[in-house]
């Protein structure tokens, strides 16, 4: 885990509540997400390609085994 994601996780898992990230806006502003356009997040389904696609060709494929 690199320093940027580690910083995000640490900020999210602070036991001290005032120091913790506790809302969506502050989390989106974290350095880890700086290259993400959350304004267009509702359209993310269209223009972002998933990193992996499950190997199911039809609804009857047993995806649990893929």
């Amino acid at each position, binding site marked *: 885990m690199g320093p940027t994601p580690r910083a995000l996780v640490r900020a999210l*898992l602070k036991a001290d*509540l005032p120091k913790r990230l506790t809302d969506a806006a502050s989390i989106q502003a974290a350095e880890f997400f700086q290259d993400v356009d*959350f304004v267009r997040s509702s359209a993310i389904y269209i223009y972002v390609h998933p990193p*992996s696609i*499950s190997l199911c060709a039809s609804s009857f494929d047993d*995806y649990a085994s893929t």
Partner: protein
Amino acid sequence: MNPKPEPDDGYNVSVDAHALPWTFQGESDADTVIMSRRAGSIGLSGDKKGTARRGVGGGGAKWSKAKYAVKGAHAFGQAGSSLAARKNEARADGTNGWIATHCVLGPRSHRGIEKFDLMRVIGRGVMGEVSLARFRKDGKYMAIKAISKGYVVKHDDERHVQNERLILGQLRHPFVVGLFGTLQNKQKIYFVLEYVAGGELFSKLRGNRCLSAAVAKFYLVEILAALAHVHAGGFVYRDLKPENVLLDTEGHCRLVDFGFACAPPDGPEGRMRTNCGTPAYLSPEQLSRKKTGGYTRIVDWWAFGCVAYELMSGHTPFCPHHRTDDLLSIVLNGSAPSQAKITRQIRIMRSIFESSKGASHSRLLWDPRRAP
């Protein structure tokens, strides 16, 4: 206030207009449900090995079954009128009719569990099971989550089921599973849900695998968008974990299983005291809710942090051995352990394992209390 009857256009909701209102009850400490790690909430997962959230109650006497059936029929058959009044689109119907906020399945003659071909079970839990089903009218595939009314009433889970129906009915988001409608008969409630065929996000982590930061970011952004949408609707999810995030056939996330979701009783920032969730993802406020006076919706972001850590490290930050006894002290004593500390622990364990090769199995189970 009873809703004004409307003509049946085939797509309106029909509920019992004379029924008691579907009340949204407040939080109560009396309702204590803790799911064990990997416990099987009956989501739309393909994991057929889901363990029980609770033990299944033994078979009761006939009179008690009858009592549950009657109580269950009351609890669910009367449901939906306040919701329908708010939507102003309901009209009178029998208690076995639809109680959904929206119906995309066709006219009234097509409503009913008998209108589906149940193909196979794709998930199982103590409350019921999830089946892949085909809607006969158009041949579309859906997931039908069947919940036993008797079990729900017996374990006082009516509120959770009602919350799930109410909340899923209001949420529309590409990363939240869609609810097409709900059905019921005397024994069961049926949630007709979008079929999400790609499996669990947790399957990406099987075998202690972890994801690269770039891949994890993709999933985290979608989970973040879904959670933000849930919060924007005034709800709290309360059970975020990789098992409750499914992937569709295109690889995008769907948040499922809203059984523990609720609307805080005093508004979006209101406090809750219900003991629910999965131990490894519980925040300090949830664990010490009696001292702190409850918790707010920010517990979802704590769980989000746990999921982020798990995706990029392969294991949860707290409770690595699922020992809930130590969880509170671990969480309250500081923030997430550093990667260096975890690496050091793994190295120590590996050296112990290497040094013990060739030793008898009993030496590995050495008990200091029995040492001479």
